[in-house]
């Protein structure tokens, strides 16, 4: 199918601001009378506030006021309140002080005297599961829908840590197929225990926020991945109606899952501002960002996988102890099970998991939460099975790959479409797998080469959100995007589905976004790689609504029925030669009012969209619709990567030499955007595979890495200068432009490919642990035991 906009590069409107530095992020805003707040955060990993002495702090000249946990809504464990009297990790915010400048605020913070009573704490999930082990929260140590206390027998703990099949009770479990029969039919059974470390999201822009109140409205300048999706939640946190919230997040310097919706500190300046009657800026420092900025859930786990003689995966038994940190996190373990269920189409799968709270930084979804952890450990196991079965590593993936008849998850539901074999073949062809696999274990002095293939998945598309398109009498097409600007340009790319329907010249289109004042429709969360799928649909239906209205108006003006009209060159015309420009139609819409100009709105639209339309009514022709297009299953985002690495056996250093990622995400909507996702995802993937992990001192609960140089995200010298990409580019039937999402698997496939390449280089050795750092390689090569404890997590 040939498109005007879809599949073409374009310049997203925020690019200029970003490259010239004119872009204004939350902390760039200044308003009259603004004061600065700083946080007092917990020095203890778990404690109770006994008393506070703020006399000295508040006596400092220039100090305006203070906000404590008593001033903000309480939140039930294990949710995150704005401020707390029961800090549950080092760095948990206890109070905030506002002053005329940051220095004064910090001087005051330095004078705060808080008496804390230390409470039992732990930085290791298995430590809390021991008999009598410390619970991370007063309400218990495990969260699976509700807080509870779960204790294993010492024997269960020891067994689990020694890598044998876990016997400790799980907190939740799901299964499909006949596991026993699956293992009976298997000729090769791989059984491994593993650890994937948690680590910070490391957003470039810390979550700074500025807020003030004006005419009963709270204005919040924040940094979130989503835009409209944030509004109802933030309004609730501030105790106001959505129409009284002005929310501005035009730019977001990275979120990666940590800024999906309204996170606690987003509401802090609003509360403080209300209390002191001044605009409040809360700049979050890098170190604070590492505390409150969320992190990936860590896994300690065990897998047993059975393969039939032909390489088909017959059964998978998966047991995961999750490190949720100190606060509620998503269902990474279940997602991991889901990923295995779709990527390899096993006949039977059981997932058992224990989501454990620890007194470490709160966790949340991070790029491929669950899916990417499991990709990192399962894919090298797949290679091991291939080796034992004598099957090529590409082939074993092809044998198990999902196609459009694939089933997934506990309910074995359908997918909208899937073409993983095509993706594997395309990659193998472009990367020349047949030749490059020969590089395996090639020695070059002290260096040895490894090649690997990695696959990853994410449920990448939802439905039911709203689109809003408007044409003003000047002929400008306003594409209202409630999608957040999280750095992927999808806020703009998805609107091109509307421009496509309207056959509009992009130069006449304006993407309205980034602030509730731009009147934005209700939109999905910008997470879960869903936006491209979800909002091309929403834009498409909104544009169709607009199109219908244009035709109806033309019919009213020029006679005939709406069906007699068509569009081209931004004009509505009929066969008789009657035509109207979009500008004229818009003018007419204002005159006609009613549904045309937003005076009357469709009932099925979300309240947020209705609010937006209320703000726009009478300004032109308004097209708005809820996406009720059919969606017959999960829209899978799939990716496969090929990596060649070199390991220096004498230094333990790993270098990625060559990399190719192939996206299996339907039609390519925005090639440059997709390239950015695949390359950026790869950088993330390399970081997860070889560099980034949480380290906590178990004696006092202190985090060891709270700065860029300590958390070690990859730098430009740690990634290959050339990273290739490709896409299957096969349209998905359940999306009007054929697109599915990709952001998260773009990372997981890279992690997995590198993990497989490491194993390949080291004669098939499985570290079963992310990241694989130089010390681990050195210890392995020297035949020394690894330094970390058995299945140890949050340690070096």
């Amino acid at each position, binding site marked *: 199918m040939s498109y005007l906009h879809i599949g073409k590069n374009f310049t997203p409107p925020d690019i200029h601001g970003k490259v010239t530095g004119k872009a204004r992020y939350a902390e760039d805003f200044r308003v009259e009378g603004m004061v600065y707040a700083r946080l007092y955060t917990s020095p203890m990993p778990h404690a109770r506030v006994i008393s506070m002495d703020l006399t000295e702090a508040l006596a400092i000249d220039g100090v305006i006021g203070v906000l404590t946990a008593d001033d903000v809504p309480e939140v039930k464990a294990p949710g995150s309140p704005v401020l707390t009297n029961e800090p549950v990790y080092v760095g948990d915010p206890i109070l905030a002080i506002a002053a005329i400048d940051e220095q004064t605020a*910090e001087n005051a913070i330095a004078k705060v005297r808080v008496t804390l009573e230390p409470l039992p704490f732990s930085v290791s999930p298995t430590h809390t599961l021991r008999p009598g082990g410390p619970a991370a929260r007063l309400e218990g140590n495990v969260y699976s829908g509700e807080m509870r206390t779960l204790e294993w027998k010492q024997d269960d703990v020891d067994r689990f840590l020694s890598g044998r099949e876990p016997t400790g009770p799980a907190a939740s479990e799901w299964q499909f197929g006949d596991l026993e029969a699956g293992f009976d039919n298997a000729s090769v059974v791989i059984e491994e225990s593993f650890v994937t470390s948690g680590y910070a999201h490391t957003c470039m822009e810390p979550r700074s926020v500025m807020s003030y109140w004006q005419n009963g409205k709270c204005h919040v300048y924040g940094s979130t991945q989503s835009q409209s999706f944030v509004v109802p939640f933030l309004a609730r946190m501030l105790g106001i109606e959505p129409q009284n919230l002005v929310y501005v997040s035009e730019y977001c310097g990275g979120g990666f899952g940590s800024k999906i919706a309204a996170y606690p500190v987003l509401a802090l300046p609003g509360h403080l501002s209300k209390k002191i009657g001044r605009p409040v800026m809360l700049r979050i420092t890098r170190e604070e960002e590492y505390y409150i900025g969320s992190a990936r859930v860590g896994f300690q786990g065990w897998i047993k996988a059975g393969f039939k003689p032909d390489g088909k995966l017959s059964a998978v038994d998966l047991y995961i102890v999750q490190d949720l940190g100190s606060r509620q996190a998503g269902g990474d373990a279940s997602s991991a099970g889901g990923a295995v269920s779709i990527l390899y189409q096993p006949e039977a799968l059981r997932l058992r998991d224990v989501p454990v709270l620890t007194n470490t930084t709160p966790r949340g979804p991070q790029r491929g939460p669950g899916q990417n952890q499991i990709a990192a450990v399962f894919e090298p196991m797949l290679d091991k099975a291939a080796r034992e079965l004598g099957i090529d590593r590409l082939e074993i993936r092809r044998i198990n790959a999902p196609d459009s008849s694939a089933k997934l998850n506990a309910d074995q539901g359908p997918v909208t479409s899937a073409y993983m074999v095509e993706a594997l073949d395309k990659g193998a062809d472009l990367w020349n797998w047949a030749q490059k696999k020969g590089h395996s274990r090639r020695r070059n002095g002290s260096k040895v080469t490894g090649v690997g293939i990695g696959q990853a998945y994410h449920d990448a598309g939802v439905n039911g959100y709203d689109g809003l398109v408007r044409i003003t009498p000047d002929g400008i097409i306003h594409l209202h995007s409630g999608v957040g600007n999280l750095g992927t340009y999808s806020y703009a790319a998805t609107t091109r589905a509307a421009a496509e329907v309207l056959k509009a010249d992009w130069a006449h289109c304006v993407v309205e976004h980034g602030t509730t004042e731009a009147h934005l429709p209700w939109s999905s969360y910008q997470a879960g790689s869903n936006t491209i799928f979800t909002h091309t649909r929403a834009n498409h239906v909104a544009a169709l609504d607009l199109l219908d209205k244009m035709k109806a108006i033309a019919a009213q003006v020029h006679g005939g029925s709406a069906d007699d009209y068509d569009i081209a060159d931004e004009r509505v015309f009929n066969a008789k030669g009657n035509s109207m420009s979009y500008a004229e139609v818009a003018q007419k819409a204002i005159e006609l009012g009613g549904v045309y100009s937003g005076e009357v709105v469709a009932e099925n639209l979300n309240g947020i969209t209705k609010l937006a339309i209320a703000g726009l009514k009478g300004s032109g022709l308004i097209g708005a619709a809820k996406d009720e297009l059919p969606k017959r299953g999960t829209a899978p985002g799939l990716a496969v990567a090929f990596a060649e690495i070199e390991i220096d056996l*004498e*230094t333990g250093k790993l270098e990625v030499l060559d990399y190719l990622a192939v996206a299996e995400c339907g039609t390519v909507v925005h090639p440059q955007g997709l390239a950015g996702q695949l390359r950026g995802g790869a950088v993330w993937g390399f970081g997860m595979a070889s560099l980034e992990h949480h380290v*906590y*001192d178990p004696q006092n609960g202190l985090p060891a890495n709270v700065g860029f140089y300590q958390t070690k995200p990859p*730098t430009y*010298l740690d990634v290959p200068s050339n990273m290739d990409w490709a896409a299957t580019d096969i349209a998905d039937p359940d999306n009007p432009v054929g697109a599915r999402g990709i952001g998260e698997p773009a990372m997981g496939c890279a992690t997995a490919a590198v993990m497989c390449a490491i194993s390949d280089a080291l004669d098939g050795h499985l570290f079963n642990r992310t990241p694989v750092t130089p010390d681990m390689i050195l210890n392995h090569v020297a035949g020394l035991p690894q*330094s*970390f404890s058995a299945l140890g997590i949050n340690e070096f």
Partner: protein
Amino acid sequence: MTSYDVMPATELYQPVNIEDATALAARLGRKGWLLGGGQDTYGWLKDRAKRPDAFIDLTGIDVLKGIRSLPDGGVEIGSMTTITEVAQNPLINEKFTLLSAAAKTVASPQIRNMGTLGGNLCQDTRCWYYRRGLNCYRAGGNICYADSPEGMNREHALFGASRCVAVTPSDTAPALVALEATMLITSASGSRQVAAEDFFVGPATDILNMTALQADEILVSVRIPRKWADATFYHEKVADRNVWDFALVSLCAAFKEDAGQITDARLVAGGVDCVPHRLREVEQAIIGQPRNETTGEAVKVRATSAATTLNYNQFKVPLMQNLVLRALRG
């Protein structure tokens, strides 16, 4: 443990000649803080983990800057010369590539542009406990958090520990010890010269300071004698990342060879001891041997014969041995 981010108001002196600087240093003593490029300093200050009363900014003093050749054929480098200049200087790149190679691996380009050689040599350790502002031994307290039963000490020392197990973070220091440099030090009460090897001080001697500098002393320059000019050098730094990362282990080696045999050698490791760590046993063992793989294999274990490992740093043992092997392999 609040994460501060704004420096407290602190006096700033910007002397333009060395006499004023030494007078200020004498007057302020430990309450003053000498300032080079600030790349080590500002972190301490922003975190409020150290609180000097005043800065004495040395970067405005011209005599402390620049690289000149010495009559004996050596070079003198002013302490306020930036690390980028050290890395790029033709004289150094011609005769003492060991130093330029080491300087090129310091931190990141931005930090090298700001940071000075003096600051790099006098910088404090990066032990993460200490950098958090904890009151460990090195901060004048009664405890070491790193060398404890469950301490997270992957980056810490194999040698020279005495209550404190922190390591030198400097990449240029081992190069200067290898090149037998001399430090020129001045104060209001006179000047002195200290061999690079004695300039760096371990915790057994002084647990609070990394160098032999007294509170009122200023490092003026570093003199590298002709002795090792044009010797064969080997430099390698191993860090987790290829830039913007401190060494897990680094090795600076200088060899003199004659008729296929090593006649003199200096091997100095960074990241394994509180001071640049000389591998004397290896140095002695390779005299009279050819510089090749066989010699390397034969002597590499001597690099670590005195090593004491901690919970998480045993990998430094094979790593050091391998670097010695590589240095000898050439």
